[in-house]
């Protein structure tokens, strides 16, 4: 459950975050204001409450209720996408405007400039803060238990009822190894981008 929640959150939140970041950087003032407000609310309310809200509120207002796991997933995706969007924004705004202008005078389209020139430089810049956020996600998955999604910490607790505290200790070890593997992965990505300087 933990790994599933982690992987699915990343798969949906990484692209969604990019879309949200376009919204918060939009030239259209209304769109920008709406997106900035959304990011403010999502980042301003505890993730645990957001999980509750996604799980319980549809039932209260007479809509069909969502199952536990999808509810937790939706809350995670929205929450993390908003955090990611700010990282993307920082990355995109840090690329000098001269890069876009150089592309334009060479007759490239804005889409080509973004995919061929800007994006790679954004990725290089955002690997460290993204790594931070993704590592936090590994451990935040434990919050899904508030709506009784049986992720690893909850499972260990159930075990611990019968045994002693050791199952929880092993859980900690699991997180540690998971994060260790991710750290290596991010280190590798960073290194693979180090052949050029910005």
């Amino acid at each position, binding site marked *: 459950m933990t790994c599933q929640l982690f992987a699915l959150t990343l798969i949906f939140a990484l692209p969604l975050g990019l879309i949200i970041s376009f919204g918060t950087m939009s030239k259209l003032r209304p769109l920008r204001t709406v997106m900035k407000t959304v990011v403010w609310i999502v980042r301003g309310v505890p993730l645990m409450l957001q999980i509750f809200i996604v799980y319980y509120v549809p039932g209260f207002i007479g809509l069909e209720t969502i199952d536990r796991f999808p509810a937790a997933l939706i809350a995670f995706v929205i929450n993390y996408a908003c955090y990611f969007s700010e990282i993307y924004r920082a990355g995109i705004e840090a690329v*000098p405007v*001269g*890069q876009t*202008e*150089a*592309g*334009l*005078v*060479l*007759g*490239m*389209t804005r889409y*080509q400039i973004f995919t*061929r*020139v800007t994006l*790679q*430089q954004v990725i*290089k810049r955002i690997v460290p803060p993204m790594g931070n956020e993704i590592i936090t996600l590994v451990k935040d998955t434990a919050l899904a238990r508030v709506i009784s999604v049986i992720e690893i910490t909850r499972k260990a607790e159930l075990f611990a009822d019968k045994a002693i505290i050791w199952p929880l200790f092993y859980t900690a070890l699991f997180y540690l190894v998971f994060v260790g593997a991710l750290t290596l992965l991010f280190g590798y990505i960073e290194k693979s981008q180090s*052949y*050029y*300087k*910005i």
Partner: protein
Amino acid sequence: MPILEVNNLIKNFGSTKVLKGISFTVEKGEVLAIIGSSGSGKTTLLRCMNYLETPDAGSITVNGEPYFDVELNKSLSEGELRAKRLHFGLVFQSFNLFPQYTVTDNILLASLLLESEKLKARLKRKEIGKTEYRAEKSRMRSKLMGTASALLEKVGLTDKADFYPCQLSGGQQQRAAIARALALTPDILCFDEPTSALDPELTGEVLKVIRGLKSGDSTMIVVTHEMEFAASVADKVIFMSGGVIEEQGSPAEVFGSPKSPALKSFLGKKKF
């Protein structure tokens, strides 16, 4: 017929009037130098010609065809705008090479994209089959590679073809940027203070390359603070001050016998 005709160009940034009615012409094969103190509107003028800024009034004609006027500009599609842009090339003060690509790839990127689009369009219209498309594509690629290495030779960077911009000196980066601009064979190549970010030692090598480009059919507009360079290379010099063309003429006229007090004091300051 002049290759470029700029007519009464006006550009404001908010309430600041940057260009207050600029008019001039450039003949094919001419080198035009634009001089003037910082803030006189030289760079804005170049940016207007490259569609990086939109003028508020006036018109630009290239090869006798309308290139810019306010009405025309509103009806332009993105594709038409791109096609128009290709009449001009621009070399920036700060090079703006793409850091993640080698020198060769910097030169190739835009032309490869442009040519593959044309090929794909032909494939879509069923003018060529799939196998033909692939053959054409590799032929196009090797042709462009040939062009790129010829350009590298022209700017003296053959041995740096596979280097990344961060591995090059400022002068080499600017020479690579010149090759990149030339790759799209613009009718008019613009230089925006190409040596202002370089120390005097490196300035020489870049100016030498620009001087080498001067030949019968390449038209160039150079915004520069290098007066000696302007005097020796340009066919025509424009002196800008406060958003207007204060004086224009041959280098001998502008440098030899300046008339306006503004130009006199500008050249006087440069002397020492």
